[in-house]
């Protein structure tokens, strides 16, 4: 591999690495958002159960 080839490869690898890093960061953020949505949904379910009034039977 010549010096020019090494530098060109490095330049393209830098582009690839930075875009990949960005995608990983966005993916981690979306994971966090998904977790928060789950938490909210769980909280809503718990609150709905607590709010349910007891019904007399018979």
């Amino acid at each position, binding site marked *: 591999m*010549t*010096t020019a080839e090494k530098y*060109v490869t490095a330049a393209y690898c830098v582009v690839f690495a930075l875009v990949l890093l960005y*995608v990983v960061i966005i993916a981690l953020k979306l994971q966090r*958002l998904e977790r928060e949505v789950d938490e*909210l949904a769980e909280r809503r379910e718990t609150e709905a159960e607590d709010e349910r009034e007891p019904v007399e039977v018979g």
Partner: protein
Amino acid sequence: MSPARHNSGLMARIPLPALATATLALVTTALCFVFFVAPNDADQGFSQRIFYFHVSIAFTAYACFIGGAWKALRYLWKRDPSADLESYVGVHQGVIFGSLVLLTGSIWAKISWGHWWLWSENQLVLFLVLFLFYCAYFMLRYSLDDGPQRANLCAVYALFGVVLIPVSFLAIRLAQRFIHPVVFTSHGPNFHGWILVTYCISQAAMFVLAYTLYRVELAGKRLDRRLRDLRRAYA
């Protein structure tokens, strides 16, 4: 803000999976053209191949900053809160692509000129000034509380920055002494044949890549905002 309102633009109606597929196809095609189709430059040889992504990324960064400024103007004009978020994401994309321009440019400069950076080059220094100006945008944005005041200040700042783009672009053409190559003159591009075809494919690939990343980030930011509103409503 209803979700339907976000998808009012023609471009915004393209589904994200389709955009991601188009990006992958275009970037792969561009790389194939760069390494297997484009001929070696008579002057610079193999190292000239950095040009295809370096210049494409530079124009994409300019486009992102202009897009961010356009959304900022739209915010100031129409007072549309979603335009503030779109402006922020546009500027963010511009900074990401701007850092790529500086990195690939430095590598190319090292092969061609023997230096990583030359302070005597107006084009380089002005691009760095533009990049740092937009980096400071985030310092401003995160130093203020969320609300109309922050949106107003950020919109004005993003609009001011756009003035630097023509200065940065024209600096090389106005300079008396330079070593940075001029690829676009008033008579059109300074190259033709397979070099021009490869450049056009690379440019299209970078534009589509930037737009896909913009859409992904914007979707995340909108979800984040809605979640925050929901949490506030529950509290």
